[in-house]
């Protein structure tokens, strides 16, 4: 991991997380809930955050790490501001989702799972969103785009780049 990109999250984040942990601590089997919350706060789950959670929940760090690495949803790498998540469900696959991934790779110059140098885009794929009627479909953060083709890929990238410029 390159050092420069990893910003050690500040105390405010940890405080927020601790408040949540205290709220749900009594519930059995709550580790996954806490990890969801933590990823929501920090954007990803660096080792420092994992060991913080282990400490506060009173579970071994190895258990937290084991769970984080088991589930695809949890990421130990920082992600771009906009996560392009391409559905690779069967319906999308049949309608050419792998081509859509290719378009993004070409346009962004990154591979799947990577983040662009400006920290703007991360390219990932997911298993079926359950929006097969829109195949091929993708999400950029919470926004859904259906019937995606080559032109739409360019439009989408442009849209977020412009959004960034205006902010």
């Amino acid at each position, binding site marked *: 991991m390159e050092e420069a990109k990893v910003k050690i999250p500040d105390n405010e984040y940890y405080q927020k997380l601790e408040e949540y942990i205290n709220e749900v601590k009594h519930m059995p089997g709550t*580790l996954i*809930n806490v990890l969801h919350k933590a990823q929501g706060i920090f954007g990803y789950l660096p080792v420092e955050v994992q060991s913080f959670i282990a400490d506060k929940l009173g579970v071994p760090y190895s258990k937290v790490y*084991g769970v984080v690495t088991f*589930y695809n949803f949890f990421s130990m790498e920082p992600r771009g501001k906009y996560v392009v998540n391409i559905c690779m469900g069967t319906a999308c696959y049949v309608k050419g989702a792998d081509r859509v991934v290719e378009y993004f790779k070409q346009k962004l110059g990154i591979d799947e799972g990577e983040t662009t140098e400006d920290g703007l885009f991360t390219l990932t794929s997911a298993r079926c*969103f*359950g*929006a*097969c009627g829109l195949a091929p479909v993708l999400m950029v953060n*919470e926004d859904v785009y259906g019937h995606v083709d080559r032109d739409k890929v360019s439009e989408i990238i442009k849209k977020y780049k412009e959004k960034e410029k205006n902010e």
Partner: protein
Amino acid sequence: MAQRLNVLVCSGASCLSSGSIEIKKKMLEEIKKAGLEDEIRIIETGCMGPCELGPVILVYPDEILYKKVKKKDVEEIVENHFLKGRPVERLLYKSPETEKLIKKHEEIDYFKKQKKIVLRNCGMIDPESLEEYVALDGYEALGKALTEMSRDEVLKEIETSGLRGRGGAGFPTHLKWKFTKDAEGDQKFVVCNADEGDPGAFMDRSVVEGDPHTVLEGMAIAGYVVGASKGYIYVRAEYPLAIERLRKAIKDAKEYGFLGENIFDSGFDFDLEVRIGAGAFVCGEETALIHSIEGKRGTPRPRPPYPSISGLWEKPTNLNNVETYANVRHIILKGGDWFASIGTESSKGTKVFALSGDIQNTGLAEVPMGTTINELIYDIGGGAPEGKEIKAVQLGGPSGGCITKEYFDTPIDYESLTELGAMMGSGGVIAMSQDTCMVNTAKFFLDFNTFESCGKCTPCRVGLKQMYKMLDKITKGEGEKGDIDKLVELGESIKKTALCGLGQTAPNPVLSTIKYFRNEYRQHIENKKCSAMVCTDLLTYTIDPDKCKACTLCAQNCPVDCIDGERGVVHEIREDECIKCGNCYDVCPFDAVIKTTGELE
């Protein structure tokens, strides 16, 4: 006050992402402008089913269905239809055969052959309104069960109904309930599997998003029978709207006393909690799901003991799928005999299918068991678009198999599908035409299963990887004679030896495509040919010099600069450098780029 018109705006996942919220907003504005606020009510509903026609709007009491509505159409609908009583014809559905306009939504083929039990409320009510659910007999079944029936009587009714698990395996529901009921334990649990991970399946999502209370009610009834006071709904993280709606539904139901303590003054307590998955397909397997609720890695364990004996925190646990629970209240209200009168000898009731792939009417359809595949994909699904022919359907997702057109007259039930080497599965139906390569499809599913394998047992972890490698080789034109037999042999042994359902069924997509499409495998291996033109390594791109207008567009878009030529000079692709990305083929405005496959004659 009763309104003159009720306007239902579909807010299922598909319509939502094609702009239904904007349409609703605009409609509210326009209605206000026209002074119709008191006469017309707008209701945001769950999925109505015909996703291909989305965004969809249904107007009651006329039952008029508008399709592919855009924001700019709203003014016209309000002005002409709501004010003047003249439906906007250009937005109505047209019969594809007769070109005739169809106004009433029930007359549309897509709806005609369906029978809605599970989806009865989906698309009809506001999923976030408990009042609307109650108005349509909501929580009446729970009341009846708690106040008029003993636990055994409820169980008997489920037994009479013949309801079987809708998650795929088809285990009789009453037996599962009975095992949990009879199991010893101071604390028991009821769990709902809403971890709908099969790619191409979105039935459970639609039920939970469109009618969440129906699931809660079914779970509460199950809780009463088995003696559980606590339940969990395990939903995948990819369904944020479903999570939100379930949480709201639980909160509302508690406020009204349909959940919580002493429900209907019966002394029965039942509480529910939503647990969110974190992106692991294997968590659809029941023992893995239980581990995940416990906050652990979602790895399966050998059974027995089954969850009904030792499940969540080693307590007796009844675990069913969303659709199974959604059937329960109807069985209690209308009786097991009524339910058993629908369907076939061995499979009762209805099944919800999610139609997608190379099919015209993508969407959700609920049909009685025993409906043929033909009826499902042609009468309801409308067949493949652009005059293509459906050569096979894939059922049961990554655990299932395909069924070829020779068998499309097979009535759908658990046994007949298994006999054909497919399975009911959760209900995803993916249509495949001549544009779908079966070898590539098998590879896709195997890639899925290999990735999702939890790694605990060797046959699944190592065996699937080897199968994947072989398939990858074949799709790259490096297949060798004997590969097909090796695939079959390896697949069969994984089926026999893997630990859980994922591994035991993972080879199915490969075995079934080999069974029915061996010829496609052979073509890939012997002729280096992919007739569906899907496997990129087997394609060759050339430029037809007669058609090429030398516009340089292809050369500009070639990522590896392997196209020679300039303005006025006909272009040519240097084949040995071509990475077969297909950019040139896509961008050429004159169709001058030709795609071929197979060894040159």
